[in-house]
């Protein structure tokens, strides 16, 4: 069902947890659809220094969360904002068609966290 990359990120997820002293937090999804994703950030000089996730969801949801944190780290917030759901799915060598909506969550959560950072620091 899942690619080797998805299974790798699912079974050894990177950056699980909450960033201490986060200056941006985003949460998307809801329990009724079976998925909730929270991303917390530490941004310094517009660069994402640290990012962590917590996810309630399927294998694809956890793998995309893990992947999006790896992709975001070290990026400027402008670069991170143009990171697409599609790019996350592609970085995992694709997702099953029924699971594409899970990848939507990962990039969305990241973008929400960045918006939160901007709100806090404007």
């Amino acid at each position: 069902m899942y690619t080797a990359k998805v299974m790798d990120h699912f079974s050894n997820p990177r950056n699980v947890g909450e960033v201490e002293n986060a200056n941006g937090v985003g949460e998307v999804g809801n329990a009724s659809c079976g998925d909730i994703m929270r991303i917390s950030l530490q941004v310094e000089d517009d660069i994402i220094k640290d990012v962590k996730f917590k996810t309630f969801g399927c294998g694809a949801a956890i793998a995309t969360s893990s992947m999006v944190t790896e992709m975001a780290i070290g990026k400027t917030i402008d670069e991170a904002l143009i990171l697409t759901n599609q790019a996350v799915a592609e970085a995992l060598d694709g997702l099953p068609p029924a699971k594409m909506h899970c990848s939507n969550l990962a990039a969305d959560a990241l973008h929400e966290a960045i918006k939160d950072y901007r709100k806090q620091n404007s």
Partner: protein
Amino acid sequence: MKKIYMDNNATTAVKPEVLEAMLPYFCEQFGNPSSVHWAGRMVGGAIEKAREQVARLFNCSAAEVIFNSCGSEGDNHAIKGTADALKHKGNHIITTSVEHPAVLETCEALEKDGFEVTYLKVDHNGMLDLAELEAAITDKTILISVMWANNETGNIFPIEEIGEIAKKHKVRFHTDAVQAAGKIAIDVRKVNVDMVVISGHKIGAPKGIGAMYLRRGTKISRFMHGGHQERNRRAGTHNVPSIVGLGAACDIALKNMDKDYAYVRHLRDKLEAGILSTISDVKLNGHPDANLRLPNTLNVSFNYIEGESLLLFFDMKGIAASSGSACTSGSLEPSHVMGAMGVDIVLAHSSTRFSLSADNTDEEIDYILQELPPIVQKLREMSPLYGR
């Protein structure tokens, strides 16, 4: 790697003795039993022997057994066939909100054709209120359809009492016994029931074969039109090898029923007690009285964790189970059974079913009880809902 199969309510392995019994009927005794020649004659007896074996499981006469292609077909036939045969009498059907889709979606299809359907609620243990059932009967009611046991929780419904209510009000009674068959007695002489549906692949026979008990004299329209097989009740060339397999599986199930009940229940109870005592925030789904559940089924919700993730981690340890999470079904909603029981939405997504068979062992239970806690812990640490 270890392979521990605990998804027997989804499907079972074919029992080696069953396959053995089937094998001569593919390439050698391959005839069509309706034919007037050696090839036909070789198989007619095999079908009638299998019919006797299935009849013994129901404790009915062989003439009351109809072979069909699966549990879904049996449910479709029983319900649509009754609706059509009795539509001059009324247009009301009573069923429950926790039936298998083969019953629920069939009833929903009939609603589009002008039938009215009452979907009985269940309480938080997944049980029916029989007074509510009786009160739902009107003079338009032509059918009550209540499953013998639920596939997700293992809950056993009071078929005997429901049969009495049906009899008192002279309403036909159908029960989907796909999960009950082979695990507990489904004796149609002890309970008042008109139609009972079973499926081969839940009891060690192959996929693609099923049977229905149809009480003598019960008028039902055909579901499958065509040839006059099965006394004109089910068209289509007889699936001889699978019919033979279903007969053999019923025979074995009946012989081993008491022994298997005790053994499987011992394993299940051990798993249940182990999980509930070693892992926090676990909720049992189904009736707390183990006597009111099938001996092989355990359904628990590991709070804060989505079911598919859990299954994938189980799978990495060789453990095969199933979940009521929406993510495993491809739909957007979690299990309708959990929903009907009023299980909180997160717990519904977390629901996990272990369904055992007599092939499981004590060692396997020990292994699961050892592997489970760290998996649950790991996933909880990833969960935004945990420790809030």
